[in-house]
Protein backbone atom coordinates (compact mmCIF):
# COMPACT_ATOMS: atom_id res chain seq x y z
CA UNK A 1 0.00 0.00 0.00
CA UNK A 2 1.33 3.42 -0.98
CA UNK A 3 1.72 6.09 1.68
CA UNK A 4 0.66 9.65 1.02
CA UNK A 5 1.56 12.57 3.26
CA UNK A 6 -1.09 15.29 3.28
CA UNK A 7 0.05 18.73 4.40
CA UNK A 8 -2.49 21.49 5.10
CA UNK A 9 -2.85 23.87 8.02
CA UNK A 10 -6.64 23.61 7.94
CA UNK A 11 -7.96 20.59 9.80
CA UNK A 12 -11.18 20.28 7.77
CA UNK A 13 -9.21 20.25 4.51
CA UNK A 14 -6.83 17.58 5.86
CA UNK A 15 -9.79 15.49 6.97
CA UNK A 16 -11.73 15.71 3.72
CA UNK A 17 -8.70 15.03 1.53
CA UNK A 18 -7.80 12.08 3.75
CA UNK A 19 -11.30 10.72 3.31
CA UNK A 20 -11.06 11.16 -0.48
CA UNK A 21 -7.82 9.20 -0.61
CA UNK A 22 -8.70 6.58 2.03
CA UNK A 23 -11.50 5.50 -0.25
CA UNK A 24 -8.84 4.51 -2.71
CA UNK A 25 -6.96 2.42 -0.18
CA UNK A 26 -3.96 4.59 0.32
CA UNK A 27 -2.23 4.86 3.66
CA UNK A 28 -2.68 8.55 4.48
CA UNK A 29 -0.52 10.47 6.95
CA UNK A 30 -1.19 14.12 7.74
CA UNK A 31 0.80 17.16 8.81
CA UNK A 32 -0.41 20.66 9.70
CA UNK A 33 2.66 22.55 8.44
CA UNK A 34 5.76 22.25 6.31
CA UNK A 35 7.79 21.85 9.49
CA UNK A 36 5.65 18.93 10.71
CA UNK A 37 5.83 17.39 7.24
CA UNK A 38 9.63 17.36 7.32
CA UNK A 39 9.56 15.59 10.69
CA UNK A 40 7.18 12.93 9.31
CA UNK A 41 9.26 12.51 6.16
CA UNK A 42 12.25 11.87 8.36
CA UNK A 43 10.41 9.23 10.40
CA UNK A 44 8.42 7.17 7.92
CA UNK A 45 8.69 6.20 4.25
CA UNK A 46 6.37 8.27 2.06
CA UNK A 47 5.56 7.70 -1.61
CA UNK A 48 3.90 11.03 -2.37
CA UNK A 49 3.35 14.39 -0.71
CA UNK A 50 0.23 16.52 -1.26
CA UNK A 51 0.90 19.96 0.17
CA UNK A 52 -0.89 23.25 0.60
CA UNK A 53 1.19 26.36 -0.15
CA UNK A 54 0.18 29.12 2.23
CA UNK A 55 0.87 27.82 5.74
CA UNK A 56 2.09 29.71 8.76
CA UNK A 57 4.80 27.37 9.97
CA UNK A 58 7.09 26.69 6.98
CA UNK A 59 5.13 27.14 3.78
CA UNK A 60 4.65 24.72 0.91
CA UNK A 61 7.21 26.39 -1.37
CA UNK A 62 9.96 25.97 1.24
CA UNK A 63 8.85 22.39 1.83
CA UNK A 64 9.05 21.54 -1.88
CA UNK A 65 12.49 23.16 -2.16
CA UNK A 66 13.82 21.24 0.86
CA UNK A 67 12.34 18.01 -0.49
CA UNK A 68 14.12 18.62 -3.79
CA UNK A 69 17.42 18.34 -1.92
CA UNK A 70 16.60 15.76 0.75
CA UNK A 71 13.89 13.63 -0.87
CA UNK A 72 14.25 14.14 -4.64
CA UNK A 73 12.53 10.81 -5.38
CA UNK A 74 9.22 11.77 -3.69
CA UNK A 75 6.81 13.49 -6.08
CA UNK A 76 4.82 16.49 -4.82
CA UNK A 77 1.29 17.57 -5.67
CA UNK A 78 0.81 21.24 -4.68
CA UNK A 79 -2.65 22.52 -3.75
CA UNK A 80 -3.74 26.09 -3.07
CA UNK A 81 -6.80 28.28 -2.80
CA UNK A 82 -5.04 30.92 -4.92
CA UNK A 83 -3.15 34.05 -4.13
CA UNK A 84 0.34 34.95 -5.12
CA UNK A 85 3.10 37.47 -4.95
CA UNK A 86 2.09 40.95 -6.11
CA UNK A 87 -1.14 39.40 -7.40
CA UNK A 88 0.79 38.35 -10.47
CA UNK A 89 2.82 35.28 -9.61
CA UNK A 90 0.45 32.59 -8.64
CA UNK A 91 1.66 30.42 -5.75
CA UNK A 92 0.84 27.29 -7.72
CA UNK A 93 2.93 28.46 -10.65
CA UNK A 94 5.82 29.12 -8.28
CA UNK A 95 5.31 25.67 -6.74
CA UNK A 96 5.63 24.15 -10.20
CA UNK A 97 8.73 26.23 -10.92
CA UNK A 98 10.44 24.95 -7.80
CA UNK A 99 9.58 21.31 -8.37
CA UNK A 100 5.93 20.30 -7.78
CA UNK A 101 4.91 17.64 -10.29
CA UNK A 102 1.20 18.44 -10.24
CA UNK A 103 -0.78 21.45 -9.10
CA UNK A 104 -4.43 21.61 -8.10
CA UNK A 105 -6.41 24.73 -7.44
CA UNK A 106 -8.79 24.53 -4.46
CA UNK A 107 -11.63 23.69 -4.49
CA UNK A 108 -11.07 20.58 -6.60
CA UNK A 109 -13.10 17.40 -6.91
CA UNK A 110 -12.23 14.02 -5.40
CA UNK A 111 -11.81 12.77 -8.94
CA UNK A 112 -9.22 15.46 -9.78
CA UNK A 113 -7.21 14.70 -6.64
CA UNK A 114 -7.29 10.95 -7.19
CA UNK A 115 -6.29 11.37 -10.82
CA UNK A 116 -3.30 13.57 -9.93
CA UNK A 117 -2.21 11.20 -7.16
CA UNK A 118 -2.57 8.10 -9.32
CA UNK A 119 -0.63 9.67 -12.18
CA UNK A 120 2.29 10.51 -9.90
CA UNK A 121 2.33 7.17 -8.10
CA UNK A 122 2.36 5.30 -11.40
CA UNK A 123 5.55 7.00 -12.57
Amino acid at each position, binding site marked *: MKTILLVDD*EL*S*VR*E*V*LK*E*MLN*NKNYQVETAASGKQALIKLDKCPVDLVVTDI*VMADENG*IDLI*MKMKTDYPHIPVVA*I*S*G*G*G*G*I*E*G*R*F*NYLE*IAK*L*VGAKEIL*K*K*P*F*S*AHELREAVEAELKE
Partner: protein
Amino acid sequence: MERKPSKSSPENFPLELFFSALNAAVDAIVITDIDSRILWVNNSFKELTGYSYSEVVGKRPSILKSGVHNDEFYKSLWGTINSGKTWQGEMWNKKKNKSRYLEEQTITPVKDENDIVTHFIAIKRDVTEKKQIQKQLQHSQKMEDIGRMTGGISHNFNNKLASILGYTEIIAEKLHELPELPALQKNTLIKYNKRVFDAGISAKQLVEQLKTFCREKAGEFHQISIKENVHEILTFAKAALPSTIEIFEDIENDLPSIESDTSLLHQLVMALITNAVTSMKSGGKLTLNVSRQEIKNQYCNSCNSILEGDYIQLSVSDTGIGIPPENFPKLFLPFFTTNQMEGKTGMGLSVLHGLIHEQHGHVTVKSELNKGSTFSLLFRYSNNVDLSSEKQNKDNAELTEEPAEKHILVVDDNPVVIELLRSILVNEKYKLSTAINGQEALKIFMDEPTDFNLILTDQTMPEFTGVELAKVIKTISKEVPIILMSGYKESDIELTSEERSLFYGFIEKPFKIKDLMNCVLEIMET
Protein backbone atom coordinates in the same frame (compact mmCIF):
# COMPACT_ATOMS: atom_id res chain seq x y z
CA MET B 1 9.12 114.70 16.45
CA GLU B 2 7.14 112.62 13.96
CA ARG B 3 9.33 110.43 11.86
CA LYS B 4 8.87 110.91 8.10
CA PRO B 5 8.49 107.75 6.10
CA SER B 6 11.61 107.02 4.05
CA LYS B 7 11.55 106.57 0.28
CA SER B 8 11.86 102.84 0.74
CA SER B 9 8.76 102.70 2.98
CA PRO B 10 5.69 101.16 1.29
CA GLU B 11 3.79 104.37 1.97
CA ASN B 12 6.02 106.10 -0.57
CA PHE B 13 5.67 103.49 -3.28
CA PRO B 14 3.90 104.76 -6.37
CA LEU B 15 0.39 103.39 -6.82
CA GLU B 16 1.42 101.92 -10.19
CA LEU B 17 3.79 99.62 -8.37
CA PHE B 18 0.91 98.08 -6.40
CA PHE B 19 -1.14 97.74 -9.56
CA SER B 20 1.74 96.03 -11.31
CA ALA B 21 2.16 93.66 -8.38
CA LEU B 22 -1.56 92.78 -8.36
CA ASN B 23 -1.54 92.31 -12.11
CA ALA B 24 1.51 90.07 -11.91
CA ALA B 25 -0.18 87.76 -9.39
CA VAL B 26 -0.93 84.24 -10.63
CA ASP B 27 -4.21 84.19 -8.73
CA ALA B 28 -7.17 86.13 -10.07
CA ILE B 29 -8.10 89.15 -7.92
CA VAL B 30 -11.50 90.87 -7.89
CA ILE B 31 -12.39 94.05 -5.98
CA THR B 32 -16.07 94.84 -5.52
CA ASP B 33 -17.99 97.52 -3.69
CA ILE B 34 -20.39 96.80 -0.85
CA ASP B 35 -23.18 96.11 -3.38
CA SER B 36 -20.98 93.53 -4.94
CA ARG B 37 -20.41 95.51 -8.16
CA ILE B 38 -17.04 94.71 -9.68
CA LEU B 39 -14.69 97.72 -9.53
CA TRP B 40 -11.47 96.11 -10.65
CA VAL B 41 -10.04 92.76 -11.74
CA ASN B 42 -6.41 91.85 -12.43
CA ASN B 43 -4.96 90.25 -15.58
CA SER B 44 -5.19 86.72 -14.22
CA PHE B 45 -8.95 87.10 -13.95
CA LYS B 46 -9.24 87.04 -17.74
CA GLU B 47 -7.06 83.93 -17.90
CA LEU B 48 -9.23 82.24 -15.28
CA THR B 49 -12.69 83.18 -16.52
CA GLY B 50 -12.29 84.38 -20.11
CA TYR B 51 -13.91 87.75 -19.24
CA SER B 52 -11.86 90.91 -19.83
CA TYR B 53 -11.75 93.88 -17.44
CA SER B 54 -14.20 95.95 -19.50
CA GLU B 55 -16.65 93.05 -19.76
CA VAL B 56 -17.06 92.68 -16.00
CA VAL B 57 -16.63 96.14 -14.50
CA GLY B 58 -19.94 97.25 -13.00
CA LYS B 59 -21.32 93.71 -13.10
CA ARG B 60 -21.70 91.32 -10.20
CA PRO B 61 -19.54 88.19 -9.68
CA SER B 62 -22.80 86.22 -10.03
CA ILE B 63 -22.17 86.27 -13.82
CA LEU B 64 -19.84 83.35 -13.01
CA LYS B 65 -22.56 81.36 -11.23
CA SER B 66 -22.54 77.74 -12.42
CA GLY B 67 -25.85 76.57 -11.00
CA VAL B 68 -24.07 73.81 -9.04
CA HIS B 69 -24.58 75.33 -5.60
CA ASN B 70 -27.93 75.95 -3.93
CA ASP B 71 -29.18 79.21 -2.36
CA GLU B 72 -28.12 78.02 1.11
CA PHE B 73 -24.50 77.95 -0.05
CA TYR B 74 -24.52 81.59 -1.22
CA LYS B 75 -26.55 82.69 1.81
CA SER B 76 -23.94 81.28 4.14
CA LEU B 77 -21.13 82.92 2.11
CA TRP B 78 -22.79 86.33 2.23
CA GLY B 79 -23.60 85.89 5.91
CA THR B 80 -19.90 85.39 6.63
CA ILE B 81 -18.51 88.32 4.60
CA ASN B 82 -21.26 90.76 5.52
CA SER B 83 -20.46 90.14 9.17
CA GLY B 84 -16.91 91.28 8.45
CA LYS B 85 -15.33 87.80 8.42
CA THR B 86 -13.26 86.24 5.68
CA TRP B 87 -14.85 83.41 3.66
CA GLN B 88 -12.66 80.66 2.38
CA GLY B 89 -13.81 77.72 0.34
CA GLU B 90 -14.31 76.00 -2.97
CA MET B 91 -16.91 76.99 -5.48
CA TRP B 92 -17.93 75.71 -8.91
CA ASN B 93 -18.09 78.62 -11.35
CA LYS B 94 -18.72 79.01 -15.07
CA LYS B 95 -16.31 80.56 -17.56
CA LYS B 96 -17.27 82.83 -20.43
CA ASN B 97 -17.16 79.80 -22.73
CA LYS B 98 -19.74 78.13 -20.41
CA SER B 99 -17.33 75.46 -19.13
CA ARG B 100 -17.45 74.79 -15.41
CA TYR B 101 -14.38 74.94 -13.19
CA LEU B 102 -13.66 74.57 -9.51
CA GLU B 103 -12.33 77.64 -7.74
CA GLU B 104 -10.50 77.87 -4.47
CA GLN B 105 -11.53 81.28 -3.21
CA THR B 106 -10.88 83.68 -0.36
CA ILE B 107 -13.20 86.68 0.02
CA THR B 108 -11.99 89.29 2.46
CA PRO B 109 -14.18 92.24 3.53
CA VAL B 110 -12.39 95.63 3.62
CA LYS B 111 -13.51 97.95 6.43
CA ASP B 112 -13.26 101.71 6.86
CA GLU B 113 -12.05 103.54 9.97
CA ASN B 114 -15.52 103.07 11.53
CA ASP B 115 -15.30 99.32 11.06
CA ILE B 116 -17.92 99.39 8.31
CA VAL B 117 -17.47 97.00 5.41
CA THR B 118 -16.97 99.05 2.23
CA HIS B 119 -15.41 96.63 -0.26
CA PHE B 120 -14.71 92.98 -0.85
CA ILE B 121 -11.52 91.48 -2.25
CA ALA B 122 -11.76 88.02 -3.76
CA ILE B 123 -8.69 85.94 -4.59
CA LYS B 124 -9.44 83.01 -6.87
CA ARG B 125 -7.54 80.01 -8.19
CA ASP B 126 -8.58 77.22 -10.58
CA VAL B 127 -8.20 73.89 -8.75
CA THR B 128 -10.22 71.71 -11.15
CA GLU B 129 -7.21 69.70 -12.30
CA LYS B 130 -5.72 69.42 -8.83
CA LYS B 131 -9.01 68.09 -7.49
CA GLN B 132 -9.34 65.67 -10.39
CA ILE B 133 -5.87 64.28 -9.75
CA GLN B 134 -6.64 63.96 -6.04
CA LYS B 135 -9.87 62.18 -6.87
CA GLN B 136 -8.06 59.94 -9.31
CA LEU B 137 -5.44 59.00 -6.70
CA GLN B 138 -8.10 58.29 -4.09
CA HIS B 139 -10.05 56.19 -6.57
CA SER B 140 -6.98 54.21 -7.66
CA GLN B 141 -6.07 53.62 -4.02
CA LYS B 142 -9.61 52.48 -3.30
CA MET B 143 -9.66 50.07 -6.25
CA GLU B 144 -6.24 48.74 -5.19
CA ASP B 145 -7.43 48.22 -1.60
CA ILE B 146 -10.58 46.46 -2.73
CA GLY B 147 -8.48 44.34 -5.08
CA ARG B 148 -6.12 43.34 -2.27
CA MET B 149 -9.02 42.60 0.04
CA THR B 150 -10.94 40.52 -2.49
CA GLY B 151 -7.72 38.65 -3.35
CA GLY B 152 -7.31 37.72 0.31
CA ILE B 153 -10.96 36.79 0.74
CA SER B 154 -11.03 34.60 -2.36
CA HIS B 155 -7.96 32.67 -1.21
CA ASN B 156 -9.49 31.92 2.19
CA PHE B 157 -12.88 31.27 0.67
CA ASN B 158 -11.41 28.62 -1.64
CA ASN B 159 -9.97 26.81 1.36
CA LYS B 160 -13.41 26.67 2.98
CA LEU B 161 -14.98 25.59 -0.30
CA ALA B 162 -12.45 22.78 -0.60
CA SER B 163 -13.92 21.35 2.63
CA ILE B 164 -17.56 22.01 1.76
CA LEU B 165 -17.40 20.59 -1.75
CA GLY B 166 -15.10 17.77 -0.71
CA TYR B 167 -17.41 16.61 2.07
CA THR B 168 -20.50 16.75 -0.13
CA GLU B 169 -18.68 14.49 -2.57
CA ILE B 170 -17.74 12.07 0.21
CA ILE B 171 -21.34 12.14 1.53
CA ALA B 172 -22.63 11.36 -1.98
CA GLU B 173 -20.26 8.40 -2.25
CA LYS B 174 -21.16 7.11 1.23
CA LEU B 175 -24.91 7.49 0.59
CA HIS B 176 -24.69 5.32 -2.50
CA GLU B 177 -22.89 2.68 -0.45
CA LEU B 178 -25.66 2.48 2.17
CA PRO B 179 -28.00 -0.34 1.15
CA GLU B 180 -29.88 -0.41 4.48
CA LEU B 181 -31.31 3.10 4.09
CA PRO B 182 -34.89 3.23 2.73
CA ALA B 183 -34.90 4.49 -0.88
CA LEU B 184 -37.10 7.52 -0.14
CA GLN B 185 -34.89 8.75 2.69
CA LYS B 186 -31.79 8.03 0.69
CA ASN B 187 -33.05 10.01 -2.31
CA THR B 188 -34.03 12.95 -0.11
CA LEU B 189 -30.58 13.01 1.46
CA ILE B 190 -28.94 12.75 -1.97
CA LYS B 191 -31.11 15.66 -3.16
CA TYR B 192 -30.22 17.85 -0.16
CA ASN B 193 -26.57 17.01 -0.48
CA LYS B 194 -26.69 17.93 -4.18
CA ARG B 195 -28.14 21.32 -3.24
CA VAL B 196 -25.23 22.02 -0.91
CA PHE B 197 -22.85 20.92 -3.68
CA ASP B 198 -24.52 23.19 -6.28
CA ALA B 199 -24.41 26.17 -3.91
CA GLY B 200 -20.72 25.44 -3.37
CA ILE B 201 -20.10 25.35 -7.12
CA SER B 202 -21.83 28.71 -7.62
CA ALA B 203 -19.73 30.15 -4.78
CA LYS B 204 -16.65 28.79 -6.57
CA GLN B 205 -17.69 30.64 -9.73
CA LEU B 206 -18.18 33.83 -7.72
CA VAL B 207 -14.67 33.53 -6.30
CA GLU B 208 -13.32 33.14 -9.85
CA GLN B 209 -15.04 36.40 -10.78
CA LEU B 210 -13.55 38.13 -7.75
CA LYS B 211 -10.13 36.92 -8.82
CA THR B 212 -10.67 38.41 -12.25
CA PHE B 213 -11.60 41.72 -10.64
CA CYS B 214 -8.37 41.83 -8.65
CA ARG B 215 -6.47 40.66 -11.73
CA GLU B 216 -5.01 37.61 -10.07
CA LYS B 217 -5.30 35.60 -13.25
CA ALA B 218 -2.64 36.70 -15.69
CA GLY B 219 -3.57 36.07 -19.29
CA GLU B 220 -1.45 35.53 -22.35
CA PHE B 221 -2.20 37.88 -25.21
CA HIS B 222 -1.47 37.90 -28.88
CA GLN B 223 -2.44 39.97 -31.90
CA ILE B 224 -6.05 39.34 -32.88
CA SER B 225 -8.41 40.85 -35.41
CA ILE B 226 -11.04 42.88 -33.57
CA LYS B 227 -13.36 43.15 -36.58
CA GLU B 228 -13.63 39.42 -37.17
CA ASN B 229 -14.05 38.60 -33.51
CA VAL B 230 -16.61 41.27 -32.71
CA HIS B 231 -18.68 40.31 -35.74
CA GLU B 232 -18.62 36.69 -34.63
CA ILE B 233 -19.63 37.56 -31.06
CA LEU B 234 -22.49 39.70 -32.29
CA THR B 235 -23.79 36.94 -34.57
CA PHE B 236 -23.77 34.61 -31.59
CA ALA B 237 -25.39 37.21 -29.31
CA LYS B 238 -28.14 38.04 -31.82
CA ALA B 239 -29.45 34.49 -31.59
CA ALA B 240 -29.71 34.72 -27.82
CA LEU B 241 -31.18 38.22 -27.43
CA PRO B 242 -34.91 38.87 -27.08
CA SER B 243 -36.67 40.00 -30.27
CA THR B 244 -37.60 43.29 -28.58
CA ILE B 245 -33.97 44.39 -28.90
CA GLU B 246 -32.97 45.82 -32.28
CA ILE B 247 -29.30 45.39 -33.03
CA PHE B 248 -27.13 47.69 -35.16
CA GLU B 249 -23.54 47.06 -36.06
CA ASP B 250 -21.03 49.58 -37.34
CA ILE B 251 -17.45 48.32 -37.56
CA GLU B 252 -14.81 50.37 -39.35
CA ASN B 253 -12.88 48.65 -42.13
CA ASP B 254 -9.10 48.13 -42.09
CA LEU B 255 -8.78 48.25 -38.33
CA PRO B 256 -5.36 47.35 -36.93
CA SER B 257 -5.08 44.23 -34.80
CA ILE B 258 -5.13 44.47 -31.00
CA GLU B 259 -3.17 42.68 -28.29
CA SER B 260 -5.81 40.52 -26.63
CA ASP B 261 -7.19 37.03 -26.35
CA THR B 262 -10.22 35.73 -28.26
CA SER B 263 -12.07 34.28 -25.28
CA LEU B 264 -11.30 37.36 -23.21
CA LEU B 265 -12.65 39.65 -25.90
CA HIS B 266 -15.79 37.47 -26.08
CA GLN B 267 -16.22 37.83 -22.33
CA LEU B 268 -15.79 41.61 -22.48
CA VAL B 269 -18.23 42.18 -25.32
CA MET B 270 -20.80 39.79 -23.86
CA ALA B 271 -20.56 41.61 -20.50
CA LEU B 272 -21.35 44.91 -22.25
CA ILE B 273 -24.18 43.41 -24.29
CA THR B 274 -25.69 41.80 -21.18
CA ASN B 275 -25.39 45.10 -19.34
CA ALA B 276 -27.12 46.95 -22.19
CA VAL B 277 -29.92 44.39 -22.49
CA THR B 278 -30.53 44.50 -18.72
CA SER B 279 -31.14 48.24 -18.95
CA MET B 280 -33.74 47.82 -21.76
CA LYS B 281 -36.39 45.66 -20.10
CA SER B 282 -39.12 46.70 -22.48
CA GLY B 283 -36.90 46.55 -25.52
CA GLY B 284 -34.84 49.10 -27.40
CA LYS B 285 -31.88 49.61 -29.69
CA LEU B 286 -28.43 48.18 -29.10
CA THR B 287 -25.64 49.63 -31.24
CA LEU B 288 -22.19 48.15 -31.41
CA ASN B 289 -19.58 50.42 -32.90
CA VAL B 290 -15.87 49.77 -33.44
CA SER B 291 -13.59 52.50 -34.75
CA ARG B 292 -10.20 54.13 -34.40
CA GLN B 293 -10.27 57.14 -32.08
CA GLU B 294 -7.85 59.80 -31.00
CA ILE B 295 -8.62 60.28 -27.33
CA LYS B 296 -7.81 63.51 -25.56
CA ASN B 297 -8.48 64.56 -21.98
CA GLN B 298 -10.73 61.69 -21.06
CA TYR B 299 -10.78 59.56 -17.95
CA CYS B 300 -11.16 55.84 -17.56
CA ASN B 301 -14.36 55.46 -15.55
CA SER B 302 -13.10 52.40 -13.75
CA CYS B 303 -9.44 53.20 -12.89
CA ASN B 304 -9.67 57.00 -13.35
CA SER B 305 -6.44 57.20 -15.41
CA ILE B 306 -6.12 60.13 -17.78
CA LEU B 307 -6.47 58.86 -21.35
CA GLU B 308 -4.54 60.37 -24.25
CA GLY B 309 -3.58 58.87 -27.59
CA ASP B 310 -4.80 56.57 -30.33
CA TYR B 311 -7.11 53.76 -29.37
CA ILE B 312 -9.50 51.33 -30.96
CA GLN B 313 -12.84 52.08 -29.39
CA LEU B 314 -15.45 49.36 -29.03
CA SER B 315 -18.72 50.90 -27.89
CA VAL B 316 -21.99 49.33 -26.93
CA SER B 317 -24.86 51.82 -26.73
CA ASP B 318 -28.36 51.18 -25.48
CA THR B 319 -31.58 53.13 -25.30
CA GLY B 320 -32.28 51.98 -21.76
CA ILE B 321 -32.94 53.60 -18.42
CA GLY B 322 -29.51 55.23 -18.09
CA ILE B 323 -27.33 55.55 -15.01
CA PRO B 324 -27.99 58.10 -12.25
CA PRO B 325 -24.87 60.31 -11.80
CA GLU B 326 -24.49 59.22 -8.15
CA ASN B 327 -23.97 55.62 -9.30
CA PHE B 328 -21.02 56.41 -11.59
CA PRO B 329 -18.27 56.06 -8.93
CA LYS B 330 -19.68 52.67 -7.86
CA LEU B 331 -20.25 51.11 -11.29
CA PHE B 332 -17.15 48.90 -11.31
CA LEU B 333 -17.07 47.92 -7.64
CA PRO B 334 -17.73 44.27 -6.82
CA PHE B 335 -21.32 43.46 -5.88
CA PHE B 336 -22.70 46.84 -6.95
CA THR B 337 -26.03 46.28 -8.66
CA THR B 338 -29.35 48.01 -8.99
CA ASN B 339 -30.98 44.71 -9.89
CA GLN B 340 -30.57 42.74 -6.66
CA MET B 341 -34.19 41.67 -6.73
CA GLU B 342 -33.62 40.06 -10.10
CA GLY B 343 -30.81 37.91 -8.84
CA LYS B 344 -27.94 39.92 -10.35
CA THR B 345 -24.71 39.50 -8.42
CA GLY B 346 -23.21 42.84 -9.41
CA MET B 347 -20.00 41.20 -10.62
CA GLY B 348 -20.40 41.81 -14.37
CA LEU B 349 -18.73 45.22 -14.56
CA SER B 350 -16.17 44.34 -11.86
CA VAL B 351 -15.06 41.43 -13.99
CA LEU B 352 -14.95 43.78 -16.99
CA HIS B 353 -12.75 46.18 -14.96
CA GLY B 354 -10.28 43.35 -14.27
CA LEU B 355 -10.30 41.98 -17.82
CA ILE B 356 -9.89 45.26 -19.69
CA HIS B 357 -7.04 46.47 -17.47
CA GLU B 358 -5.36 43.10 -17.68
CA GLN B 359 -4.74 43.90 -21.34
CA HIS B 360 -3.80 47.54 -20.63
CA GLY B 361 -7.11 48.82 -21.98
CA HIS B 362 -9.62 51.19 -20.38
CA VAL B 363 -13.34 51.79 -20.22
CA THR B 364 -15.39 54.97 -20.48
CA VAL B 365 -19.08 55.44 -19.75
CA LYS B 366 -21.54 58.06 -20.92
CA SER B 367 -25.12 58.02 -19.82
CA GLU B 368 -28.26 60.08 -19.74
CA LEU B 369 -31.19 59.15 -17.53
CA ASN B 370 -34.07 57.56 -19.45
CA LYS B 371 -32.19 57.97 -22.74
CA GLY B 372 -29.49 55.33 -22.51
CA SER B 373 -25.84 54.61 -21.92
CA THR B 374 -22.71 53.98 -23.93
CA PHE B 375 -19.91 51.83 -22.54
CA SER B 376 -16.71 52.08 -24.57
CA LEU B 377 -13.74 49.75 -24.32
CA LEU B 378 -10.48 51.34 -25.40
CA PHE B 379 -7.68 49.14 -26.70
CA ARG B 380 -4.18 50.23 -27.56
CA TYR B 381 -3.29 48.94 -31.00
CA SER B 382 -0.18 47.98 -32.84
CA ASN B 383 0.54 49.34 -36.28
CA ASN B 384 0.31 45.89 -37.84
CA VAL B 385 -2.31 45.76 -40.56
CA ASP B 386 -5.43 43.80 -39.86
CA LEU B 387 -5.05 40.12 -40.56
CA SER B 388 -7.65 37.83 -41.94
CA SER B 389 -7.23 34.88 -39.65
CA GLU B 390 -6.19 34.17 -36.07
CA LYS B 391 -3.47 31.79 -37.16
CA GLN B 392 -1.94 34.34 -39.44
CA ASN B 393 -2.07 36.86 -36.60
CA LYS B 394 -0.28 34.51 -34.27
CA ASP B 395 2.40 33.74 -36.85
CA ASN B 396 2.81 37.40 -37.57
CA ALA B 397 3.11 38.25 -33.89
CA GLU B 398 5.89 35.71 -33.59
CA LEU B 399 7.66 37.10 -36.64
CA THR B 400 7.39 40.73 -35.59
CA GLU B 401 8.44 40.09 -31.99
CA GLU B 402 11.31 42.40 -31.14
CA PRO B 403 14.62 40.71 -30.51
CA ALA B 404 15.72 40.67 -26.87
CA GLU B 405 18.51 43.19 -26.88
CA LYS B 406 19.31 44.11 -23.32
CA HIS B 407 21.05 41.49 -21.25
CA ILE B 408 20.60 41.21 -17.48
CA LEU B 409 22.53 38.97 -15.09
CA VAL B 410 20.58 37.98 -11.97
CA VAL B 411 22.51 36.58 -9.01
CA ASP B 412 20.66 35.14 -6.04
CA ASP B 413 21.07 31.97 -3.99
CA ASN B 414 17.29 31.68 -3.62
CA PRO B 415 15.80 29.90 -6.67
CA VAL B 416 12.37 31.38 -5.94
CA VAL B 417 13.76 34.90 -6.30
CA ILE B 418 15.55 33.90 -9.49
CA GLU B 419 12.39 32.42 -10.96
CA LEU B 420 10.40 35.49 -9.98
CA LEU B 421 12.88 37.83 -11.59
CA ARG B 422 12.98 35.60 -14.64
CA SER B 423 9.20 35.79 -14.96
CA ILE B 424 9.24 39.57 -14.62
CA LEU B 425 12.21 40.40 -16.83
CA VAL B 426 11.69 37.86 -19.62
CA ASN B 427 8.11 39.06 -19.78
CA GLU B 428 9.51 42.54 -20.39
CA LYS B 429 11.60 41.09 -23.24
CA TYR B 430 14.99 41.22 -21.56
CA LYS B 431 17.59 38.55 -22.21
CA LEU B 432 18.40 36.91 -18.90
CA SER B 433 21.30 34.96 -17.43
CA THR B 434 21.15 33.67 -13.88
CA ALA B 435 23.61 32.51 -11.29
CA ILE B 436 23.01 31.08 -7.82
CA ASN B 437 26.26 32.31 -6.32
CA GLY B 438 29.02 34.83 -6.83
CA GLN B 439 31.48 32.39 -8.42
CA GLU B 440 28.99 31.25 -11.01
CA ALA B 441 28.07 34.87 -11.73
CA LEU B 442 31.69 35.81 -12.26
CA LYS B 443 32.20 32.87 -14.61
CA ILE B 444 29.18 33.94 -16.70
CA PHE B 445 30.25 37.57 -16.66
CA MET B 446 33.87 36.80 -17.60
CA ASP B 447 32.73 34.88 -20.69
CA GLU B 448 31.21 38.03 -22.21
CA PRO B 449 32.08 41.05 -20.03
CA THR B 450 30.73 43.58 -22.53
CA ASP B 451 27.49 41.74 -23.13
CA PHE B 452 25.66 42.79 -19.95
CA ASN B 453 23.56 45.92 -19.55
CA LEU B 454 22.71 45.33 -15.90
CA ILE B 455 23.56 43.06 -12.97
CA LEU B 456 21.04 42.45 -10.20
CA THR B 457 22.69 40.79 -7.23
CA ASP B 458 21.64 39.64 -3.82
CA GLN B 459 23.86 40.77 -0.94
CA THR B 460 23.78 37.78 1.39
CA MET B 461 25.04 34.69 -0.40
CA PRO B 462 27.37 31.93 0.82
CA GLU B 463 31.07 32.51 0.11
CA PHE B 464 30.77 35.65 -2.05
CA THR B 465 28.59 38.60 -0.95
CA GLY B 466 26.97 40.97 -3.43
CA VAL B 467 29.46 43.70 -2.46
CA GLU B 468 32.43 41.38 -3.04
CA LEU B 469 31.03 40.36 -6.41
CA ALA B 470 30.50 44.02 -7.36
CA LYS B 471 34.11 44.87 -6.43
CA VAL B 472 35.46 42.17 -8.73
CA ILE B 473 33.07 43.04 -11.57
CA LYS B 474 33.87 46.75 -11.36
CA THR B 475 37.58 46.00 -11.73
CA ILE B 476 36.78 44.25 -15.00
CA SER B 477 34.15 46.70 -16.27
CA LYS B 478 33.44 50.07 -14.70
CA GLU B 479 30.51 50.65 -17.04
CA VAL B 480 28.07 47.94 -16.08
CA PRO B 481 25.44 49.16 -13.60
CA ILE B 482 24.83 46.91 -10.59
CA ILE B 483 21.75 46.90 -8.37
CA LEU B 484 22.11 45.42 -4.89
CA MET B 485 19.14 43.49 -3.52
CA SER B 486 18.72 42.57 0.13
CA GLY B 487 16.18 41.46 2.68
CA TYR B 488 17.71 44.05 5.00
CA LYS B 489 17.15 47.79 4.82
CA GLU B 490 19.83 49.73 2.96
CA SER B 491 20.78 51.50 6.19
CA ASP B 492 21.23 48.16 7.99
CA ILE B 493 23.88 46.93 5.56
CA GLU B 494 27.06 48.53 6.70
CA LEU B 495 28.63 49.83 3.51
CA THR B 496 31.50 52.25 3.21
CA SER B 497 30.97 55.16 0.83
CA GLU B 498 33.38 53.46 -1.56
CA GLU B 499 31.31 50.27 -1.49
CA ARG B 500 28.10 52.25 -1.90
CA SER B 501 29.49 53.88 -5.05
CA LEU B 502 29.77 50.45 -6.69
CA PHE B 503 26.01 50.28 -7.02
CA TYR B 504 23.58 52.12 -9.23
CA GLY B 505 20.80 51.46 -6.77
CA PHE B 506 19.42 49.37 -3.94
CA ILE B 507 16.27 47.26 -3.80
CA GLU B 508 14.88 45.96 -0.55
CA LYS B 509 13.27 42.52 -0.62
CA PRO B 510 10.42 41.80 -0.84
CA PHE B 511 10.25 44.32 -3.62
CA LYS B 512 7.34 45.64 -5.61
CA ILE B 513 7.45 44.72 -9.29
CA LYS B 514 6.71 48.35 -10.13
CA ASP B 515 9.71 49.62 -8.11
CA LEU B 516 12.01 47.04 -9.62
CA MET B 517 10.87 47.82 -13.16
CA ASN B 518 11.18 51.57 -12.60
CA CYS B 519 14.79 51.06 -11.56
CA VAL B 520 15.54 48.70 -14.47
CA LEU B 521 13.87 50.98 -17.02
CA GLU B 522 15.75 53.99 -15.71
CA ILE B 523 19.04 52.19 -16.29
CA MET B 524 18.06 50.84 -19.69
CA GLU B 525 16.95 54.25 -20.88
CA THR B 526 20.15 56.00 -19.89
